[in-house]
């Protein structure tokens, strides 16, 4: 999927989000509560539609603007179909795919939710160092244990924060 298509999809998603905001705002009982959100959502919708029109039907008009020349159209920085931008170029060592990045964050969240903050910290850092950093086990263990200990000392001893124990423990062992 080209970056232009992805850009369009993201803009459309935002458009639906703002339309959702408008719909929900109309449901509010108090006129005062609608006073500010409604025009802001409305203006944002208009701007998004304009953005979609310009980037798809007027590619000759450049949308990136220099900070000094406000509203003046500057040189093109929107990549054409098929070009690879700095953002997506994977020429560096240890580069990974977007899906991989989303998965990494999702895995961390799943570990936190299921096992708890401290357990997730230990396992995630250990796993990341071994799998992505290609570090030796002792080095990875040192980083993960050290970080976990620091979190424990800072959050759960120093300020007596009640730790999130994980959904598994709360559901099956509480």
């Amino acid at each position: 999927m080209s970056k232009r298509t992805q850009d369009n999809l993201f803009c459309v998603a935002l458009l639906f989000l703002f339309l959702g905001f408008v719909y929900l705002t109309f449901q509010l009982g108090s006129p005062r509560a609608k006073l500010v959100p409604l025009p802001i959502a409305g203006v944002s919708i208009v701007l998004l539609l304009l953005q979609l029109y310009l980037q798809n039907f007027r590619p000759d008009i450049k949308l990136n603007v220099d900070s000094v020349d406000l509203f003046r159209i500057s040189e093109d920085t929107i990549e054409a179909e098929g070009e690879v931008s700095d953002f997506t170029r994977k020429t560096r060592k240890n580069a990974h795919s977007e899906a991989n990045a989303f998965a990494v964050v999702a895995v961390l969240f799943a570990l936190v939710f299921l096992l708890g903050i401290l357990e997730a910290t230990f396992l995630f850092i250990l796993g990341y160092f071994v799998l992505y950093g290609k570090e030796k086990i002792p080095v990875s263990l040192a980083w993960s244990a050290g970080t976990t200990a620091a979190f424990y000392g800072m959050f759960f001893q120093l300020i007596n924060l009640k730790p999130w124990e994980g959904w598994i423990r709360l559901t099956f062992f509480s």
Partner: protein
Amino acid sequence: MLEASVQGLVALFNPTVAIYMVLGVAWGLTIGILPALGGITAMVLILPFAVQVAPEAGIALLLGAHIGTIYGDAACSILFKVPGSGKAIVHCFDGYPMTQKGEGARALGACASSAFIGGVIGAITLTLTLPFMRAVMLALGPPEYFMMGVWGLSVIAVFADGSVLKGLVAAGFGLMVSFIGQDPVTATLRYTFGNTYLMDGLEFPVVAVGLFAISQAMTLHIRGGSIMDSEKGIDLGTSSVWQGVRDVFDNWGLVVRSSMLGLWIGALPGIGNVVGTMAAYGQAVQTSKHPERFGKGSVEGVIAPTATMGANEGGALMPTLGFGIPGGETMAILLSAFIVLGIAPGRDMLENRLPLVFSMVWILVVANMLTSTVGILTASQLAKVAKLPGHTIIPLVLTISLAGTYSLSGSIEDVVVCVVFGFIGYLMEKFDFSRADFAIGMVLGLLIERYMQVSLTTYGDMFIFTRPVTFLMLIGILITLVWPIVNSARKKRIAAKVG
């Protein structure tokens, strides 16, 4: 006034005050620089200790920590592009690009120096202008604060990195997110879907951590390598911390202007220093000889907001202590601590207890000096963090982000919100929707709405035109927005004539 200032300074020679101030600065620097743990989080963590010691020690501890977190927040923005608080958002614009170019030490040196000089200028100016400042504070009302918030939003249009339309949409998105929860005037629940967690709205630190820290970690994971683009090479001659210090003295006019801005905006209750840093950045762009460099790693883009932050704190004490109206989120925490420590805010503070007020101002100045010294001495080492391999930084940033987010209120829902906004932030960055504009919109949204509602109720629909100061501020904002267009058209006409 001068006598009160001197009495306040003498109070600093108490060993207890000095020791706790140093401890506070150390805490603020250590915690503030960690992604996701800066600003308000650092203050929240130290609050339980501060209220358990003697009042003067508690005050010194808190104020020292507060100053330490200011530098820490700015350093975190510069090194990791993760603002620890709203006022440090602006440092992402130019500070982080400087780090990517290998000029992180220079940026940190400029940051530390300008914060110190800004703090000194702010304290001296405060001493001399306090009577006038009190009159101004009393004269301004909700309509003027509303225009201040609009002024802060107008910076989005002055500086739009990438598509202006997308920047404005991002700001609109941020504004809408700020409206989640209770309407500040009617208490109507908005966009909560009956969920009790959403009734309190989304906390800015939670969203900001996701938007910046999580998404930055994802970007680094995809890109590979380290934060610093080592392929571009390092020019050691321009990347030293002392170059940053020299830059501050080379731009002394900018430092003075930004400090004045920070002091006066900080003195306005309820506005906070977010508006001040944005306004300082905007005026730096417009007065610079090289405005085209902004957004790409201009040291002026680091100096201006930091000088504002340094001067802001002294001014922010005035409404906090004089009226009990905090100038920002960290001032709100300070205020609650002050009350527990037996310091009751009110006009009596500004009229009969000025020595105490000035001792706090001088604590801020000395803490600033200490923070700046430590900042300059450690800048070179700190900047090396940008060279750490991604596989070291990424897991640490991600785990600190989630743990720090959880620590704010012990709620797993905060972690969910953080992760969701992490994904959103990544997509926004990919498709050139400015996350900084989103953050600005979110910070200013409720503030603008509250003051607008109060102004409409108190002064009627035409309040902008019936109040002279408000109208003048509107004219000033319009000039700020229109001037670049006029200037550009004028330059084109001149170029056409020459050509």
